């Protein structure tokens, strides 16, 4: 727990993190400007923009704060100091992960509060053009969008303990991120009945297996549904949460197993 608090404090005192928090407060209000161009339905457009902002913020956090911090820990011997406290390598990784995951919450929370205020303002100013049910849609959507980034953070930990340095980690993490955005929609398209009918059975089974296995980190469909007030079934939401938390857990366990055996030269 001490290292988790230490990690959170370290991130919190980082200038870039403070700027990100400021951006989370201001962006929902700044987005009212481009949003005013779409006068047909302000609520949906605002929700779309907010989800995009959250994606940007969390991806920015993982790539530009969490990755350099973890890579520095291993490359620049900070983990030697921390491990000499002493603590086990698994405790070190888990505490670092939880600290960074906790640091994502204030970003999401601030974005949520600020966007709620912006939405109330919009609903008050232009009630005829606002249809989205803010009470649950946007807050829950924002919390759900956090889950893929917990999985990505888990992947980051696995990559950092396997890679030889920060550049290599960045390349691999970017590849994972890119693939997790681009491959699942392609697989989903291949699974459509009209496409599947023309596919050899073996290939279909393979595509189906891949579709089940690969995480969809983009959450694009979910964002779209929520932004348009179409609620996915509760069991779908549960499956979505379990999927991402499982990926985070699996990546973290693999990272711990590897890190236990790694020489820290």
């Amino acid at each position, binding site marked *: 727990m*001490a*290292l988790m*608090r*230490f990690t959170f*404090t*370290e*991130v919190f*005192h*980082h*200038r870039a993190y403070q700027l990100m928090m400021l951006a989370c407060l201001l962006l929902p209000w700044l987005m009212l400007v481009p949003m005013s161009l779409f006068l047909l339905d302000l609520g949906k457009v605002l929700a779309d923009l907010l989800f995009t902002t959250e994606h940007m913020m969390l991806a920015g956090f993982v790539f530009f704060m969490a990755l350099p911090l973890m890579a*520095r820990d291993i490359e*620049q*011997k*900070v983990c*030697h*100091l921390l*491990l*000499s*406290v*002493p*603590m086990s390598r698994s405790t070190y990784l888990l505490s670092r992960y939880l600290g960074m995951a906790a640091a994502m919450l204030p970003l999401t929370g601030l974005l949520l509060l600020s966007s709620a205020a912006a939405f109330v303002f919009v609903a008050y100013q232009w009630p005829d053009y606002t249809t989205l049910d803010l009470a649950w849609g946007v807050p829950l959507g924002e919390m759900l969008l956090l889950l893929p980034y917990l999985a990505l953070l888990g992947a980051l930990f696995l990559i950092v303990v396997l890679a030889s340095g920060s550049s290599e980690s960045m390349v691999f993490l970017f590849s994972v991120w890119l693939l997790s955005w681009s491959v699942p929609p392609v697989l989903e398209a291949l699974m459509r009945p009209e496409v599947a009918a023309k596919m050899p059975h073996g290939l279909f089974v393979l595509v189906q297996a891949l579709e089940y296995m690969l995480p969809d980190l983009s959450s694009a469909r979910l964002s779209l549904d929520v932004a348009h007030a179409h609620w996915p079934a509760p069991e779908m939401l549960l499956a979505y949460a379990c999927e991402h938390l499982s990926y985070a857990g699996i990546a973290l366990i693999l990272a711990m197993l590897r890190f236990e*055996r790694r*020489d*820290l*030269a």
Partner: protein
Amino acid sequence: MLRVEGLGKRYGRRWALRRASFEIRKGEAVGLLGANGAGKSTLIKCLLGLLRPSEGQVHLATEASYLPEQPQLPGALSPLAMLRFKCAARDWPREWAESALQASGLAQAAWERPLRQCSKGMQQRVLIAWTLCGPDSKLMLLDEPMSGLDALGRAEILSLFQQRKDSGSAILMCSHIVPDMVRLCDRVLLISGGLIREEIALSDHSLVEAEMLEERLVRWQ
């Protein structure tokens, strides 16, 4: 406090350290002297478990603290936050953090300053405070502890380590600064090509002994 038996580390087919055996008792300071790449840091990292030894055993019967060679400290945090973390992680009194910083000689004005604003010498003192923080009697593993310190600072830190030694701590120090090593250590292990070649007892801690050590070091290279 520490017993090492036949410790070795191999990278592929190359042995970075081989058959290292020695013992360090309470209140004793031992120096590790060798050229770059001789295996000094490898030995210390094997003792701490940062490197998995390929052979041999380490018996550590006490608390150990470690000062790595020039790590990059978390720039956003203050020295006090770092030390308080160590105390919190071990359930030690928070005041030990302040005592260690005080003992390291770091000016109080710098205690709450972000580490990125601290000079190299100040950061080295923070690392020394990190090593000192904890119970009095323990094993201190120091990898180039005088790095970045001026002559006055080195003298101060040496006398601090001497005090710790007198109060029962054991020290294993590797350094390139032979006179510093001679002033503090009771014995020196000469290491070359991954092997401990000689164990030299120091008696009068004089410059003559320092010169003798340098000569032996050159001979083994």
